């Protein structure tokens, strides 16, 4: 039971990490390989601010905003040529360009801040939940993830803008005919996804720590979750995040860490081969 709860906690973080990636793909047909790097930028920015004496909360908020602004700048500059392409070419070019961006960010951060890490210690004794003692850090991280995901779902379901986002994911041309400007919404969602990656980084910082070298791993994790959930499906990312989180923590507990990662990878591969559209995807 304790293992399962741990898994749920980790799964919420995974879902948070993947949601941004899947939304950009659904919306813009763009696979962002620099997604994990957005999280890392947030983490480093927050850690630096805290080092310079800022209290935790404002430091973290500024960090998340940094992630969002960075995403905004990228979307408004070098992603422009990508949007001029269509279909498969767009995905391919976006992949190569964001890979370049990931390298630039990685190189600069690892070079300048090799020892900086975001480490938000949530002190205090373990809290009993359903009779299971849970670490405060992982509870706080889960809570943060739940709130962020909840706000996101409310936004997508009930606000005009959120409905516009969903309509573009369904059918870009149709949405355009209804007077929605896909390009503006896309930019907004790109920034949103950068911010979500930042929140995921904060949650990660509460349970363990995050440093400049973690970008690629985070991107890969997000990619696995996204693929299993179905590229472009927000609900799929949530479900897949929870499932994989539970699988991860069960496998780590009973088998061992290195096999676990292989299990996750094989799950992703098998999902593509058996059902390319993922758990919740709409037809291939």
């Amino acid at each position, binding site marked *: 039971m304790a293992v399962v709860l741990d898994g749920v906690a980790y799964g919420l973080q995974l879902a948070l990490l993947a949601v941004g990636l899947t939304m950009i793909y659904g919306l813009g047909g763009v696979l962002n390989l620099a997604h994990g790097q957005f999280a890392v930028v947030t983490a480093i920015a927050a850690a630096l601010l805290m080092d310079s004496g800022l209290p935790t909360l404002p430091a973290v908020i500024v960090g998340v905003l940094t992630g969002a602004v960075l995403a905004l700048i990228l979307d408004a500059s070098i992603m422009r040529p990508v949007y001029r392409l269509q279909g498969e070419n767009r995905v*391919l070019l976006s992949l190569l360009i964001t890979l*370049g961006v990931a390298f630039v960010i*990685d190189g600069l951060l690892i070079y300048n801040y090799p020892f900086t890490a975001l480490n938000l210690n949530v002190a205090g004794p373990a809290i009993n939940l359903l009779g299971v003692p849970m670490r405060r850090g992982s509870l706080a991280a889960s809570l943060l993830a739940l709130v962020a995901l909840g706000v996101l779902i409310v936004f997508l379901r009930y606000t005009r803008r959120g409905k516009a986002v969903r309509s573009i994911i369904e059918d870009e041309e149709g949405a355009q005919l209804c007077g929605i400007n896909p390009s503006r919404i896309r930019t907004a969602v790109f920034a949103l996804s950068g911010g979500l990656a930042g929140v995921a980084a904060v949650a990660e910082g509460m349970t363990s720590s995050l440093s400049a070298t973690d970008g690629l791993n985070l991107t890969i994790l997000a990619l696995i979750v996204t693929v299993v959930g179905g590229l472009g499906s927000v609900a799929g990312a949530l479900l897949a995040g929870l499932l994989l989180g539970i699988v991860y923590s069960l496998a780590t507990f009973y088998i061992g860490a290195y096999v676990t990662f292989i299990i996750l990878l094989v799950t992703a*591969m098998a999902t593509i081969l058996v059902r*390319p559209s993922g758990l919740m995807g709409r037809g291939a």
Partner: protein
Amino acid sequence: MASTEVPLGAQQDADSAVVATQAPRWRAYLPVVATAVALAAIPLIIGDSRYYTDLATLALVFAAYAVGFNIIFGNTNQLFLCLGAFAGVGAYGTGALGNELGVPMPLGVLISVCVVAGFGAAFSWVSVRRRLDVIFVGIVTLTFSLVFINLLLGQRDVTGGETGMVLLYDPGPVGERGLVSYYIFLTVLIVFLTVYRWVQRSHIGWAFRALRDDEVAAELSGIDVARYKMIAGAMGSAMVALVGALYGHYEGFFSPTTFELGQVDVPVLVMLAFGGIGSLLGPVVGATVFTIVDAVLRPLAQLRTAVYGVILLVLFLGFRHGVVPSINDLARWVARRRSPGS
């Protein structure tokens, strides 16, 4: 979707005129011969400096990787992101067979290369059968390479984990490091280039060009897309595995970092993009330039990654057609200006 767009991997072959017309056979192979002569002369220029010989050998290794990848990605638009893993299977396979079972090295290399060719063909088959987009082929092969690296790290008994695999047998002439290995890798590269040009001129090349430009149209005109993609997948993967095996033995021991995604796939992709995807000599030009740049930038340490990122961005935003095709275009433009009446 607009069908007038030219797919990323499918630029006009800069030298398609030579390939397509029934030009005299020797003319089609002229660039290969010229490359062979030029590269064979390199050791005369750099003298017996150990550092530069090693560097030149490294360039050859990567050029050969890139030729293999060029067949897979440049000719049939399959984004295999497991070159490092394939090269690693070639090296570690040979090493494990030699260390554990005492299989002689040439036989070990042959077996490993065949296994990898099987993997390559299987990936191609699956991607055609399941109608996977380029992007999904990329993700599947990416997960394969991650699984491979994790297995290497996990199976310490056989692979030695992070510290690497030490060879318990004599790697032969490749392991001598120096002029001998330089010429061995040069031979491999020239053989690859010859095969590449031969394929381009055969019926296989025609099928490649057709399915690269428009898969559906190719299928409709009677080309067995699955079969030709599998040929490309198997051939390119086998090349990568052979180079990986030889390079591993050249280094004297195998370590997982040698075959990491960031150490093989990414540089090869950048080289090919720089030299020109789908061109004959693109891999050679790209690998040469990249190796020199890499050596020059070495003092920058981690900042190098950032520079590669910038190069990648500039390449794909600016020169999406690569350097060799651009030069060819320029040459043709000059020729047209000179010839009167046209």
